[in-house]
């Protein structure tokens, strides 16, 4: 069943992504786009788009400036984010939702089995399902790798004054490949989950207004729904089943 965004006004909505989170996400997008556009021409120096992008940015010198501007934005964002986790009790609570648990592994297997028709009901997800947890942790890991290695590349003369060149080279290779990994993860995995899959196509609006309808919450994050509303939702009452399969619980 697809949610029609226009009918949202008449539905009960819950705040899934408060403004502080949305701003962080927007800033992350900005830095990501800047970094990808100014970084990929170096990674794929032989590709025709590289010359085009470099011309657009005004040459190698400007490319470096754009890249470092993106880096500074990302570093600032990470500091802000970490600051929140350290100083805000609310954020500390929230971050616990992202910790990987054994349930995420079983959920993932369950999800596959459900899609293959070997399980009748989808996994019962909490506020963040295994896909979202993975994406958050991947961004966190990626940022750490990219910022550390990027810093080494940025201040090459300083680092090479005490760091053997092979270690510096390792930083460069890691930076280069991690970038490709991150880019592909976003383009394929994140875009499928928030843009292209039939549930949300053409786009989930959560990143814009932060709101999720109660129906969506019930369908995708049933444990969170139960926690908020205090109602128990048995598997058979999940929206997809009630919509498609009638009222009969399995």
């Amino acid at each position, binding site marked *: 069943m697809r949610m029609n965004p226009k009918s949202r006004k008449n539905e009960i909505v819950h705040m899934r992504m408060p403004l502080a989170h949305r701003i962080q996400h927007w800033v992350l997008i900005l830095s990501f786009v800047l970094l990808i556009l100014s970084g990929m*021409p*170096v990674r794929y*120096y*032989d590709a025709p788009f*590289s*010359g085009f992008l*470099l011309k657009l940015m005004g*040459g*190698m*010198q400007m*490319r470096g400036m754009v890249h470092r501007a993106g880096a500074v934005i990302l570093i600032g964002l990470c500091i802000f984010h970490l600051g929140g986790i350290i100083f805000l009790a609310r954020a500390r609570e929230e971050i616990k939702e992202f910790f990987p648990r054994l349930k995420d592994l079983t959920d993932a297997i369950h999800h*596959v089995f*459900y*899609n*293959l*028709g*070997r*399980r*009748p009901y989808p996994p019962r997800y909490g506020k963040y399902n295994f896909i979202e947890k993975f994406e958050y942790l991947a961004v966190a890991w990626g940022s750490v790798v990219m910022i550390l290695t990027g810093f080494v590349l940025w201040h*090459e*003369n300083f680092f*090479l*004054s*005490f*760091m*053997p*060149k*092979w*270690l*510096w*080279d*390792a930083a*460069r*290779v*890691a930076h280069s*490949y*991690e970038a*490709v*990994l991150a880019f*592909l*993860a976003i383009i*394929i*995995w994140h875009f*499928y989950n928030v843009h292209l*899959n*039939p549930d949300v196509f053409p786009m989930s609006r959560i990143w814009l207004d932060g709101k999720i309808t109660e129906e969506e919450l019930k369908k995708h994050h049933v444990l969170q729904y139960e926690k908020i509303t205090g109602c128990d939702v048995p598997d058979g009452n999940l929206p*997809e089943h009630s919509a*498609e*399969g009638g009222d009969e619980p*399995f």
Partner: protein
Amino acid sequence: MFALCTALIIASENSDASPCQNCHETNLSNSVHKDVDCGDCHADAAEYFAQKRSSDGHPVPLKPVACMTCHSQQITKHGKAGEAGPSCRDCHGTHRILTPSNPRASVSKFHLPETCGKCHENGKYSESVHGKALTKKGLVVSAACSDCHGAHHVRVPKKTDIPVLCGKCHEGILIVYEESIHGKAHHEGVEESPVCTDCHGEHTIAAVASKESSVNPLRVSETCAHCHENHTLIKKFNLPTQRLSTYKESFHGIASKFGKGNAATCASCHGEHDVLPSKDPKSRTHKKNLPKTCGKCHPGAGKFFAQGTVHLQPSPEHDPLVYYIRFFYKLMISGMIGTFALLIFIDLYGRRTRGKRKDVYEDEPEEPEE
């Protein structure tokens, strides 16, 4: 009265000396041959007048002038044409012949390109650093045609002669070149070893700073690659491989490719005329010299710059960390993308078939239950 007398005297002297002036106004006073009589060169005319003693015209045409009568030393061989090449007058002119050192002479350095250009297309030379030095800067020391090709024995210089030939003017460079690996190999008779022209070109030689130059920082890597990416040569002389490809993927190579003129190129580290293999302690790329070489651009470069490889494809033997990180990421990327693709496919499959599947459960509900 005095003027009249003088005029008469001159007129009578002239008519005595040679009958040529009666008809010809040819003036040899500016020529190197100003003391030579017309008849010395045009012997057939002189003979005619001597016999006939007539002031009527001589039969035309006259025989070609035989310069060899006097200039018997100058045997001319002109490239493939040999002795059948152009005659003296084609280059030196006729009545206005001047010494080559005279800037107005057709065979002076300033006019040689034009003179040779009557037959040889020379557009490229005029644009070269030598051509411009001559025509724009007026530098008589610059090389013109004859400096490399010779004057009366015109030929294509042999490759083996080129270092010495260029060294006539670029003497300091010749000394450095002879100490380099290329110079030594050339000296030992390795005919593939590059000489001046292999890197700089011939008629197209341009100033290094010019983008036309094959040794311009932005182009030199391609020039070196002519040999250092040539598999036949690499095999024959056991040269290190992938010099250009590994350079191209370095920051230096990428910056250079996209027009950053101060990015390091082959010559920045390996030197130009003094190229030596890195094993040689005198080489700029010898481990112990690397801090100094890298330090040209990287202030404070120390021993750490030398701890690692420079444009070598990482392998488990050298640069193991780089090699394994690369390996790890290749594995990660393919594994992760594969997993994503599979999950997306399964997800779409699930969405498509879920309706039909419900019937299956209703038929045999116990089977898929956990």
